[in-house]
C-alpha cells in the first residue's frame, strides 16, 4: 500500500521539480504552453479529452476496482 503510494507521489514530485527547474532555466516551456501546442492536433486533443473523461468515469461511475486472483 505504502510502496505504491510512494511511487505515484514520486512521479508527481519528480515531474513538478523537473518542470520547475526546466522553466526557470529556459530549457522548457510551461505545461500550459505545451498543452496548447499539442492540442492543435485533433487526434491528440480528442485523446487527451477522452483520457480525462475516462478517469472521471472510472473513479465515479464505472468498475473502479477488480477482485484479486481472477485475471
Amino acid at each position: 500500500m505504502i510502496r505504491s503510494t510512494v511511487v505515484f507521489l514520486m512521479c508527481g514530485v519528480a515531474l513538478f521539480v523537473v518542470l520547475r527547474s526546466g522553466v526557470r532555466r529556459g530549457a522548457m516551456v510551461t505545461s500550459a504552453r505545451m498543452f496548447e501546442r499539442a492540442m492543435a492536433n485533433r487526434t491528440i486533443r480528442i485523446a487527451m479529452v477522452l483520457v480525462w473523461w475516462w478517469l472521471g468515469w472510472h473513479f465515479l461511475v464505472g468498475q473502479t476496482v477488480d477482485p484479486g486472483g481472477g485475471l
Partner: protein
Amino acid sequence: MTSPAPTPRRSHLFRRSGGAPARLAHDESGAAGLAHDEPRAARLAHDEPRAARLARTGPAHAPRSDDDARTLTFGTVAWLVVLAAVTGVQLSRRAWPDALTLLAVLGVLVVDLTGSLRHGTVTVSHTGPAIIGAAVLVGLVLFVAPRHGTVAGLAVVASGAAALAYAWPDRADDDHVAADRPVWDRPTSRTALAWSAAWIAACLWELAMFVLGSHETDGRNLYPAASDLLDPVLDNPLAKALFVVVWLAAGVGLLARTDRR
C-alpha cells in the same frame, strides 16, 4: 500556403486577456508571416523569451489547415498507442462500458486520420461562461449523487459527450490565436518529454500492480494499483468532492487549451 479566408471578429472567453490584434501577412513567395500592430509589439518587448522564439521560428505561427489536423506525427501515433493500451487493459478487466467507449473513439480517430470524415470549422463565441456554468452544475450533481449510481453516470456521460463534441471541430482561423500560438520547439519537446516520462513510469507501475494483484489471492492488498488506493478514499464525501473539483477543473482547463491552440 493559401491566404486564410476573412473571418468575422469574434470573442473567445478563454483567450488570453490583453491579446492585441495581429494580422497575417503574406510575402511574394506565399509564406505567411505575422504583421503586428503597435500594442502587440509593445507586449512582445516585455516578453523577451517568447519574442526571441518568434524571431527564430517566424512562419511556424502560420494558421493550421484542415490537413494539419490529420498529420500523422510521433505524438499522434503515441496517443493512439496510449488509447489502444488503455482499451486493452479495460478489455482484460472486462470493464465493457469503458472498453467499448475507448474502442469507439479510437476507431473514429483512426478513420479520421484517413481523411474519410467530413468536418469543417466552427466559430466559437462566449462559450467560457457556459462551460464553467455546466462544470459547476455537474459538480453539484456529482457531489450529491452516490458513486456508481445512475445519476452520476448520466452526469459523467453528458460531460464527456459535450467535451468531445466541443473539442472535435477545428476553430475557424482566428488571427488572435494564430499570433499567440506557441511553436513546437525544443523547450516544448522537453516539457512534453518530462510529462510523458512521469506518466509512463506511473502507468507501468500501475500495470505491474494490476497484473501482479490479479494473479494472487489478496493480490489487491499486496499489490495495490491507484484505483485500489483511491477507491476507499473516495467513499469519503469530502475526498469525493475534492476529486470532482480537480477532475472538472482539469476538463475545463483542457477545453480552455482547445480554444487557445
